[in-house]
């Protein structure tokens, strides 16, 4: 089972946290810090797997991808196949890419709510629910359509969110 999905910046700032096995809230930041310490100590061109027993308990591993200024981390137990998890990270990233047209950290920062929506279409209760990024996109677009229909929201294009960048 997938125990958690984390997206964090290369500065160690959490950008998205989702736990599928309950973790007390006061522990969240310790987990983020622990994972970040592991990640930041790793050079490039090493494997994408880290044993995370010390942080999450026995048998738990994490797989990560380091893209530009972000780490995408999936935490999972021994019932999952390591490379399949890595593929899933890739699907997540590809889907974000399709959503945001070349996703960058700012997209993730300002649209963390959308990330939750996308993630919910991909993982449910710690199990992968959809692996086709086309299917995920279709569901997300459907949600967007429903949101628009209800007329209670204003639409802010990406260009505006960029204004807030430093």
């Amino acid at each position, binding site marked *: 089972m997938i125990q958690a999905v984390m997206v964090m910046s290369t500065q160690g700032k959490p950008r998205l946290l989702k736990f599928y096995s309950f973790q007390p809230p006061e522990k969240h930041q310790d987990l983020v810090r622990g994972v970040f310490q592991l990640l930041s100590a790793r050079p490039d061109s090493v494997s994408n797997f880290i044993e995370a027993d010390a942080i999450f308990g026995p048998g738990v591993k994490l797989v990560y991808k380091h893209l530009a200024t972000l780490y995408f981390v999936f935490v999972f137990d021994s019932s999952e196949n390591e*490379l399949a998890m890595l*593929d899933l990270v890739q699907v997540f990233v590809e889907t974000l890419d399709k*959503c945001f047209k070349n996703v960058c950290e700012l997209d993730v920062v300002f649209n963390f709510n959308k990330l939750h929506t996308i993630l919910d279409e991909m993982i449910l*209760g710690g199990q992968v629910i959809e692996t086709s990024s086309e299917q995920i996109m279709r569901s997300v677009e459907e949600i*967007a359509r429903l*949101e628009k229909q209800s007329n209670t929201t204003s639409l*802010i294009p990406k260009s*505006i969110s960029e204004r807030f960048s*430093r």
Partner: protein
Amino acid sequence: MALSGMRGLSVFVSDIRNCHNKEQERLRVDKELGNIRTRFKNDKVLSPYEKKKYVWKMLYIYMLGYDVDFGHMETVSLISAPKYPEKQVGYIVTSCLLNENNDFLRMVINTVRNDIIGRNETFQCLALTMVGNIGGKEFSESLAPDVQKLLISSSCRPVVRKKAALCLLRLYRKNPDVVNIDGWSDRMAQLLDERDLGVLTSVMSLFVSLVSNNAETYWNCLPKCVRILERMARNQDIPQEYTYYGIPSPWLQVKTMRALQYFPTIEDPGARRALFEVLQRILMGTDVVKNVNKNNASHAVLFEALALVMHLDAEKEMMSQCVALLGKFIAVREPNIRYLGLENMTRMLLVTDVQDIIKRHQAQIITSLKDPDISIRRRALDLLYGMCDVTNAKEIVEELLQYLNTAEFAMREELSLKAAILAEKFAPDLSWYVDVILQLIDKAGDFVSDDIWYRVVQFVTNNDDLQPYAAAKAREYLDKPALHETMVKVSAYLLGEYGHLLARRPGCSPKELFAIINDKLPTVSTSTVAILLSTYAKILMHTQPPDVGLQQQILTIFKKYESYIDVEIQQRAVEYFELSRKGAALADVLAEMPKFPERESALLKKAEDAEVDTAEQSAIKLRSQQQTSSALVVVDHPPVNGSVPASNHLTLVKMPSQNVAEESNATYEEPPVETPKENGAPIEVESKVDIISEANIESKVEPPTSHHASQADLLADLLGPLAIEGPPAAVEQSPVQGLEANQSPVGDLALATLEDQSNSVQPIVNVEEKFHILCSKDSGVLYEDPHIQIGLKAEWRAHHGRLVLFLGNKNTSTLVSVRALILPPSHLKMELSSVPDTIPPRAQVQIPLEVVNLRASRDVAVLDFSYTFGAIPVNVKLRLPVVLNKFLQPITLSPEEFFPQWKALNVQSLKVQEVVKGVKPLPLPEMASLFMSLHLAVTPGLDNNPNNLVACTSFFSETTRAMLCLVRVETDPQDRTQLRLTVASGDQHLTFELKEFIKEHLIDIPRVQAVPPPIAVQPQLPPAAPASYNDPGAMLAGLL
């Protein structure tokens, strides 16, 4: 991207980003939280949009690590909003913020249910997602049937059904009863026919979870899984969107193969063949390509296929192919593949017959120990540890020692523990073992636990020829300028005990030894000071003729430490000071430490425990459990080292093992207070027994034993912690004996007691059952009635046994006329110590019983026990669990050893064959574990026919000494009730008895065990009584 944004939210996120430090951020967050709180208070003015915006802000703040302790109700209430956007936010944020026990969830349970059973598909999806993410007992109880309905409904769209499948999985985890309905396995089979791959992937996840808990129920689904794999392998009917970098849904393939690993085996030949075809195709058809993502995907499938092949115990050819592939992987550039190659090779060690092929890759694996990636280094370490055996131990351990110099702190502890364990397990000679441990302490003293140095001391103490060597080594280390404190301890200890053996060497006179050890005294901690003081006392004792100068120096130190802050040290100082003025008596009191009793290594035990902890859960773990239980591959010792027979473990003691005085002496040293008390009293009292019986050698034990505290003295340094680490009743479980669990060696229905009809007191335990338990265990209750409990504890060594009977008076009044007699069969020499006539209230007495096995026999010894309580006489006759298998010790033979023996025994009456009918129909693995329980080591690979079993064991008796016994069972798969049994040994009597013994356990009809009649036997029956009296069968015949 068309998802809508929210201006207020973006502004807030942007503000947070603009904060220059944590303090600013906190201020901004506090301001926002205050704002939200006020807004929520007068929520009449809040528009749904605003509500939504604040809830997202809360989630953002929560993610940053701030406590959000309000607004939960507002969040939850959004779930009940009529419109989609609010509802969606409500569901998502609720599942992030609240856990399953949150009371607010109860408020919305009805809304959630309405959304699930309602017609609105998008609402259904939201509700299923939240329930699936949160789980929870209450959700499980109230929603499971509805979720189930959605999953199997034909009218639902795939998007809903796949969510229902995973939601149900989560609810199942909380409450397994949700699928506890008639015909669910058929439903499951239908679901696996699903064409939509999205739904099928989810269904497969559900299936994996179900089957991991209960494979039996889902046999009918197995062919479906194979069919799914075939469909994927042939790329039939796979929509483009489920093809990931050209691979038909790797996730589904992986999950399906994972599911298959939960089935113990695949028997249906058709399914097996089809599956192997698919697996073969995957193994052969996967190439390393340039595209990283494609590589990952194809190898995800490949590695799962490898795991499945291992699980299915494929033909050797296919296994070798797998090892070859793995060998290729551990050398590729792609680090992920290297990592997984090492990991899977470690799993591969569980498979029989491939260890040798794996060893060919040893050099490459050692290279991986220097990989820049710590993940890979860890894998390499695990693999080296697992593949180590006597043939390569030297090389591997030396590599590990070398690696210790450069290893990061994170790995050192594990590394040194592993090196120590391997050195102990596979040492080609003991001096090498001592070298390794001393090097370990030298290089990584901080990471060397006390167990490790206690263990080396035990070895040195028990092996005389090792002592000068170890002492010399210790002396060498003391010359080093900077020494770890553990090294000071072990060196001082060894030199105190054995320094005198070096006396003629340069730099090793007592004076010099003292000087160099005393250099360390000012800088060491209290626990080391204690050892140094003992060492000084020993040096003093060994200095012959006495050296007045040295004596003065040492006495001054003792004097000084009499006022040391630690009371333990004070006591030592005082005692040693007094002792050292006693002249000749000193030599007696401070004589060399006696040999340690053999006991299971605390280290090895630790290692096994650790392996259990870190073992792969899931399929691999399950599989190793199956293997252990069928005892075909892994026997008794940790799975990774499955190929190594237990006899390869170093054994502590080389001395003649029957040296009872020494043994009990050693037992005595175990401070009773620290002995593990699994079954309380018996163990504790046993120590007392030893104290009494061995009081005459008290003077040999040091230090002075005048009062209890001194026991925790020097001896406790070494023995106390070991005794704690040791297994319960450590003394009786030495690896050499390997006597462990076994089943009842005597017929099931045997009469355990022959109650006198007049007995008005009835046992309150099932005496027969207790007997059977004791046949397989070495301590426990033999008999119990309202007045007395008889416990028993046994140790076995070769053909000797030492039993202790514990007679416990449960009453508040005295039991009188207590009599215990042994009626030994002719093949056992038994000596029972004298039994007191009375047992005081609430007291327990212990009666040691020595047993010597003269030859093989299935006859059983009987204890005739009587006492009087009040005016009621009670007499019981109890069989004693001194049965044939107690004198067997399983051994594993290689084909090269086995076949010559087997042929050599081709002599009539030494090798006996019999067709046995009416056998309990047992599956082969169960028969194998039955054999294991009888201490017959089933050795796979010796007989090519899979329907046959071959087992080896050593039998010990006074006439035969250690004698090899070989057993072969040929079963008929068509008729499990008959088999052909061949037994061979170097003694025809033994062959016959062993054959009958095995038969008794195979045959279905319970054997009625003859029990001696209650004839009058004189107390202290001589051990070699006439056969007619000793043979229970003859006795019974006489009675009838």
